[in-house]
């Protein structure tokens, strides 16, 4: 046992350092690199190509401007809400994420000149010739997505044209509702719908776009004014040179993707990203569980200690981390603490911290339960031989407790593995996030979630089988 411990610890430390190091270096390079957050699921503005590279109007535009103006950008696809929060808590220097310029946002952010004029269009199922204009919608249902301009526009005209509104939280569901015929039409941002139709999502656009909001690039209020200036200058240069139109055309008049949309085809085209995501999921699980085990043993021992202060400490730790949702903890460590103390933390470090502390609380309970289920006579016999409490615990009680804990430990492994999916919310590119990103590109939510679910299922079934075998061995007294 002792032989393995040291290399394991070294590997662990190396792994940890490799996450922290790049973040530490980024701050010290003398050439200015701006960290720009973006959405992950907003084609054609930003999405991941099959080869794992981020592309889209926002990305290409930003890169072209950076080149034109001579600065560097590091793009961080976090998801829209996370990107906005990251900017608020100054985790990043700017956000470009198809974000409409609104008065409310102007209170917190400084915006560039508008780089894209969006607007709402109406789309219907491909081949539906009956609906040509708004008045054809009388008595029909229209699908919209919560909080979008499409939703506000549809609401503003629904009484005039006499249609009903059905609200969705997710674009894919909204499109599906139209394709299955439940809703007759959908209102959404022009570029998004145009791109979706081009990608063969089964819809076609029937109206010209209503003039609407404009998208802008944002920095925190009063921060990085030079960046906004460079962005504006670069943008007007690109418009003059015609490169701006070229970038837009690349995405909005793109030919239909020839990607195979069958399950097998999807697996073929997406397995590199999915396997990378799975790797990240497993890494997060294993590293955080190793840390959680250490925390669990320390705080589990506190929980069984006679010392009241230690006991209290253990209880407080366990209660806090069991008593709050993991997602809140993740936001707290990624956005809350760094904003309050004014420092930056990488999403992976924050994610590992969250998972470790969360799982540590459950591990502490597992350790406590394991220790308490060892016969009291064991401790008494060890103490009667003159062994001090710590030695008796380490040599007699803990080895037995650990054997009893193995099934619960594997159960926690499974729970933590599933919990890693929650970290997709802070933009960590684990398995669920990889799925989200791929769906943002190909809009194949049913098949993709099926594949992602299956991947989790297979890994967890393997673990369950291992756990059952171990349990049987323990029962037979062989372990």
């Amino acid at each position: 046992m002792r032989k393995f411990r040291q290399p394991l610890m070294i590997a662990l430390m190396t792994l940890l350092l490799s996450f922290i190091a790049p973040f530490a270096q980024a701050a010290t390079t003398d050439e200015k690199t701006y960290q720009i957050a973006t959405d992950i699921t907003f084609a054609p503005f930003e999405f991941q190509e099959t080869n794992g590279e981020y592309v889209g109007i926002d990305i290409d535009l930003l890169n072209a401007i950076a080149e034109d103006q001579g600065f560097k950008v590091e793009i961080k696809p976090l998801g829209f809400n996370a990107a906005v929060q990251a900017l608020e808590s100054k985790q990043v220097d700017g956000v470009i994420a198809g974000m409409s310029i609104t008065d409310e946002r102007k209170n917190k952010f400084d915006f560039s000149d508008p780089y894209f004029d969006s607007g709402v269009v109406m789309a219907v199922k491909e081949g539906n010739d009956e609906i040509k204009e708004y008045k054809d919608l009388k008595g029909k249902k229209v699908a919209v997505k919560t909080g979008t301009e499409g939703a506000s526009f549809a609401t503003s005209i629904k009484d005039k044209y006499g249609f009903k509104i059905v609200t969705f939280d997710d674009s894919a569901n909204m499109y599906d509702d139209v394709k299955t015929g439940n809703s007759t039409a959908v209102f959404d941002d022009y570029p998004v719908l145009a791109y979706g139709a081009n990608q063969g999502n089964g819809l076609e656009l029937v109206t010209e776009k209503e003039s609407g909001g404009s998208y802008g690039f944002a920095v925190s209020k009063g921060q990085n004014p030079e960046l906004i200036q460079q962005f504006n200058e670069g943008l007007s240069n690109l418009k003059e040179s015609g490169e701006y139109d070229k970038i837009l055309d690349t995405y909005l008049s793109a030919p239909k993707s020839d990607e195979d949309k069958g399950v097998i085809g999807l697996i073929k085209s997406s397995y590199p990203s999915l396997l990378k995501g799975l790797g990240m999921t497993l890494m997060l699980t294993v590293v955080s569980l190793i840390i959680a085990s250490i925390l669990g043993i320390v705080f589990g021992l506190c929980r069984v200690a006679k010392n009241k202060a230690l006991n209290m400490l253990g209880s407080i730790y366990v209660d806090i981390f069991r008593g709050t949702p993991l997602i809140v903890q993740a936001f707290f460590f990624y956005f809350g603490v760094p904003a309050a103390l004014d420092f930056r933390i990488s999403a992976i470090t924050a994610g590992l911290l969250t998972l470790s502390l969360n799982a540590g609380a459950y591990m502490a309970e597992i350790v406590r339960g394991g220790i308490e289920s060892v016969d009291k006579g064991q401790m008494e016999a060890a103490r009667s031989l003159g062994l001090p409490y710590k030695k008796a615990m380490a040599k007699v009680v803990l080895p037995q407790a650990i054997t009893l804990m193995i099934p619960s430990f594997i159960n926690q492994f499974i729970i933590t593995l599933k919990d890693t999916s929650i970290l997709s919310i802070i933009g960590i590119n684990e398995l669920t996030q990889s799925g989200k990103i791929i769906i943002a590109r190909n809009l194949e939510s049913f098949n993709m979630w099926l594949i992602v679910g299956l991947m989790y299922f297979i890994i967890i079934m393997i673990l369950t089988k291992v756990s059952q075998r171990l349990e049987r061995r323990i029962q037979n007294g062989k372990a």
Partner: protein
Amino acid sequence: MAKLKVNQLKKSYGSLEVLKGIDLEVQEGEVVCLIGPSGSGKSTLLRCMNLLEEVNGGEVMIDHTLLTDKKVNINKVRENIGMVFQHFNLFPHLSVLDNITLSPIELKKNTKAEAKEIALKLLDRVGLADKANARPAQLSGGQKQRVAIARALAMNPDIMLFDEPTSALDPEMVGEVLAVIQQLATEGMTMVIVTHEMGFAREVANQVIFMDGGLVVEKGTPAEVFTNPTHPRTQDFLDKVL
């Protein structure tokens, strides 16, 4: 000077007073048997002698060391007091040999090689030389208890405490364990034994102490206590068990 001296010892669990002021003395080389009905406090008394139970009042003294003094390093004192439990309490994750050598090695009393040599001699003494590499789960009750005795002896204690060492055994195994204890007695080990084996107590004890209701009711030689009990409660108890 007595080897072990208990003075006005009191112990309660919450409002339940289990020991109500016990006085007794054990001389060097003496074998003392504690007898009495269950719930009389004899096991608790025994467990107070190495402070496995916290004492609420009174004193426990071994040689010149006052155990009930908070400044005393109880771990050091316990190295010198062997204890054998009703349910053996062998360490199930360790082999028989490792059960015996664990504390001598951990407490740096012996080197590994010495500890092993001593353990094998002790196993030979309790008739289990062939079981050194067995796991406790592979042993019978009687064998487990003999290993437990060997484990306690490995620390080379001056005093041995036995807490109902044969109560959890099948009847046919009682003899083998008592034989080992008897052997220790003839070798001059100072022992305090809580037991229900009256025949055994009569045979090996120098002093028999009858307890009831948290008090010492009667003490004396086996002949005195078993043949001519002076107290009606002793008489009553002996009538029931003999």
